[in-house]
């Protein structure tokens, strides 16, 4: 399990224990990864987050166009594995959860404990601290070296 901020760990651990989910990915509505469990490559996590956020954004707009309230959750039930995608409000803005589960769990179990998880997250979120400067002032040198290495120049 990897989390961006430590207060997410407790609720996420409990959700994993109770739901027996295989993979969990939490992201912001613009597709930035907040926490994940079960993925091996960080770049795959980002692709999954981009696609998950894209699906939620487009179904949200679709619901809006059709005059419906926003979808609570989307579930894709495969033969080996099911996927649930669900948006929820947090004090840090709207987040999206992507959960993959196998036959050892079920849609009902995942949805039940995901609801508890989102309640816990909403209660646990500390107020966001204003962000100060992050990078050193003279970061350009390292950026140039990184980009040169990346492009083999």
């Amino acid at each position, binding site marked *: 399990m990897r989390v961006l901020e430590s207060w997410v760990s407790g609720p996420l651990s409990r959700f994993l224990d109770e739901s027996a989910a295989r993979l969990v990915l939490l992201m912001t509505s613009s597709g930035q990864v907040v926490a994940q469990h079960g993925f091996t490559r960080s770049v795959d996590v980002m692709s999954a987050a981009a696609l998950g956020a894209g699906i939620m954004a487009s179904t949200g707009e679709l619901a809006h166009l059709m005059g419906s309230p926003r979808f609570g959750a989307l579930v894709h*039930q495969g033969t080996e594995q099911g996927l649930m995608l669900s948006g929820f409000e947090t004090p840090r803005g709207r987040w999206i959860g992507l959960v993959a589960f196998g*036959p050892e*769990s*079920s*849609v*009902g*179990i995942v*949805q*039940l404990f995901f609801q508890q998880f989102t309640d816990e997250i909403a209660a646990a979120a500390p107020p966001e601290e204003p962000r100060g400067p992050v990078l050193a002032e003279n970061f350009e040198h390292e950026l140039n070296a990184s980009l040169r290495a990346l492009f083999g120049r």
Partner: protein
Amino acid sequence: MSGADHALRRVSAVRGVRGAMLVSAPDGLVISESSMEDVDGRAIAALAASLAGRLRRAAASAGLGRPTVIQLRGETGTLLAVPAGDELLVVAVGDRETNLGLARLELLEAARGIA
């Protein structure tokens, strides 16, 4: 009213039964429910389906065949679940005063009618 709704109402009518529902066994989702008073049907459906799945594996390991009735007695009441085929589960929740014998009969009858 569908056959399932009618069967669930018969289960709910048994003395002490607080509610009955038809649950999708692989998903743990409520398909239909009858008078679920003061109980979280969604949670019971998810957990009862999970319990039934595990008990099915336990029963098979012990050479007992498939479970036909699952009865869980708590301090203040009882949960009964009867599989209806592979995909469905009929579930009832009752208090301490529940006529369990009759409730089981009605559940079995409901499961036969639905499966």
